């Protein structure tokens, strides 16, 4: 089938979905919205892991920073959501930059553990900085977004908002990755020394990947705060970082559309398995292990470039 026709059909389906689902069940609209949020998160993480090849384990922290920034601005300063959304994204992106700068010297598992530690420190700050964050009680009563005097109240409005945000995220990240920046990141992922030897500054692009990933996590966080109208440290734990990571891995790291697929699978499956919900994490753990053994590139991993000078010889060497 023609690619354009396919895109058109998918777009039409996504646009018409509230008409089909919205009347049937509010609940499935909520599931769709959650898929949207996690798609943005996993696409952002995919830039860091799949493209720049940096194993980061603290993505929920960026999500949390975005959500708390948005919540605090919306509650305390009564700003418009449309202003808060970019501010939260920029603030979170800045934190990505701050974290990225010292840790890019680390590699692989060390980087994973340090970013995990960063995630935990951020969460502890949410819990313990009671004056600002109200600690474990969280921040309730975040006002809903307004557009030309119209207040977002139902799930359908939020669905269209997140749909727009997902599309913007996809297009922006896709353009970045298909520019020289993306190619440089791929070169660094494949071989950092080679990249450095041909004049690509690895550190610059690694920091850039962290900043981009955090920026979009900030958007997802701000949306989440406005949508659920309540933030608490519980939504940004270590397990949430693992969940986002699993989305990237199961979907296929190095492929943006794979991240959306991964997010869809990992949001829908637990809902379908509600009657065995206590086995949810067990199955997730098992799925991750099996995936690593049998198909480490994920369900929809990137296709390898056809022109490969080294063929298979480079695998496993030079590490």
């Amino acid at each position, binding site marked *: 089938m023609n690619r354009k026709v396919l895109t058109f059909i998918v777009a039409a389906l996504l646009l018409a979905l509230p008409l089909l689902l919205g009347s049937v069940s509010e609940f499935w609209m909520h599931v769709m919205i959650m898929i949207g949020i996690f798609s943005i998160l996993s696409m952002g993480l995919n830039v860091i892991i799949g493209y720049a090849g940096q194993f980061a384990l603290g993505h929920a922290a960026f999500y949390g920073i975005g959500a708390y920034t948005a919540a605090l601005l919306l509650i305390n300063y009564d700003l418009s959501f449309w202003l808060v959304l970019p501010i939260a994204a920029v603030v979170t992106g800045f934190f990505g930059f701050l974290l990225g700068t010292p840790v890019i010297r680390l590699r692989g598992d060390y980087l994973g553990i340090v970013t995990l530690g960063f995630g935990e420190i951020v969460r502890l700050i949410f819990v313990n900085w009671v004056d600002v964050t109200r600690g474990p009680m969280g921040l309730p009563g975040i006002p809903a977004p307004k557009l030309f005097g119209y207040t977002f109240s139902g799930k359908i409005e939020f669905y269209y908002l997140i749909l727009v945000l997902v599309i913007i995220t996809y297009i922006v990240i896709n353009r970045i990755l298909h520019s020289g920046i993306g190619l440089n990141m791929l070169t660094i992922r494949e071989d950092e020394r080679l990249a450095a030897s041909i004049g690509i500054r690895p550190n610059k692009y690694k920091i850039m990947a962290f900043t981009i990933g955090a920026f979009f996590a900030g958007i997802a966080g701000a949306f989440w705060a406005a949508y659920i109208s309540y933030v608490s440290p519980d939504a940004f734990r270590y397990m949430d970082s693992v969940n986002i990571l699993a989305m990237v891995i199961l979907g296929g790291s190095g492929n943006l559309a794979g991240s959306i697929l991964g997010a869809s699978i990992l949001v829908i499956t637990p809902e379908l398995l509600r009657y065995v919900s206590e086995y949810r994490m067990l199955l*997730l753990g098992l799925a991750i292990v099996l995936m690593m053994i049998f198909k480490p590139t994920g369900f929809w991993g990137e296709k390898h470039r056809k022109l490969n000078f080294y063929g298979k010889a480079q695998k496993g060497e030079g590490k």
Partner: protein
Amino acid sequence: MLFQQITNGLTIGMIYALIALGYTMVYGILKIVNFAHGDIYMIGSFLGLFFLKELQVPLYVAFIFSAVVTALLGVTIERAAYRPLRKADRIVPLISALGVSTFLISVAQLIWGTEMRPFPTTFGAKIYTVGSVTISEIQILILVLSCLLMVGLHLFVKKTKIGTAMRATSISLTNAALLGINTNRMISLAFAIGSALAACAGIMVGIYYNAVYPTMGYMAGINAFTAAVLGGIGSIPGAMLGGVLLGLVEALAGAYISTQYKSVISFAILIIVLLIRPSGILGKKEIDKV
């Protein structure tokens, strides 16, 4: 006050050291961080609880049973989740380990529930006072048993033939195999010893805090990993030194700086050590080969 904190710090530091040994032995050979190690420690603790409570065995038998079963678990995990990935990129076993960790936590939650469970033993409640320092029976047990286990491990690794084979394997997997060492068996052995030590630590912590719960392995795992990195990952004496140092720092910082941010301290130490001296105190500097 100061001596009291030092005693408490030493106690918890010994626990960190025992868990850290598991990280460091596996890393020494395979160069992977066994992310699930903290959860193996948690399972060990629950198994100890199970043997004490359901089977009503004496404490020392619970230690032995739990250590043996946990060792088998560690070996099984290596077989199932790490061995098939030996040739893969370094990031792959790490993700697999995250899967194992998630799996173990949910297994524990399914079997034993999510709440904290007390340890059904009267042992360790007795308290001795030496000068201004109070020390409980369980603290003495932790200090003595940990020292014994670590000295035993040290002698095993340095003096026996199998220990020599293990050291050879950790220096070079290929060369050890060429010399006729069954390297797979050495890897299994490293997992078995590490898991058994973690199980002992788990039971002692369970008695010390009188609480066992499925997510207890997370913080303990992070702290122990910090200890391993602090001492120099891959080095067995390093893990012991790192554990004790971290326990002391944590206890003193908790007493004199802030209890709320106590767990931030180990993360901060970890990050600083990794950035400034990634090879740790006793670790060998690894040359980054192209």
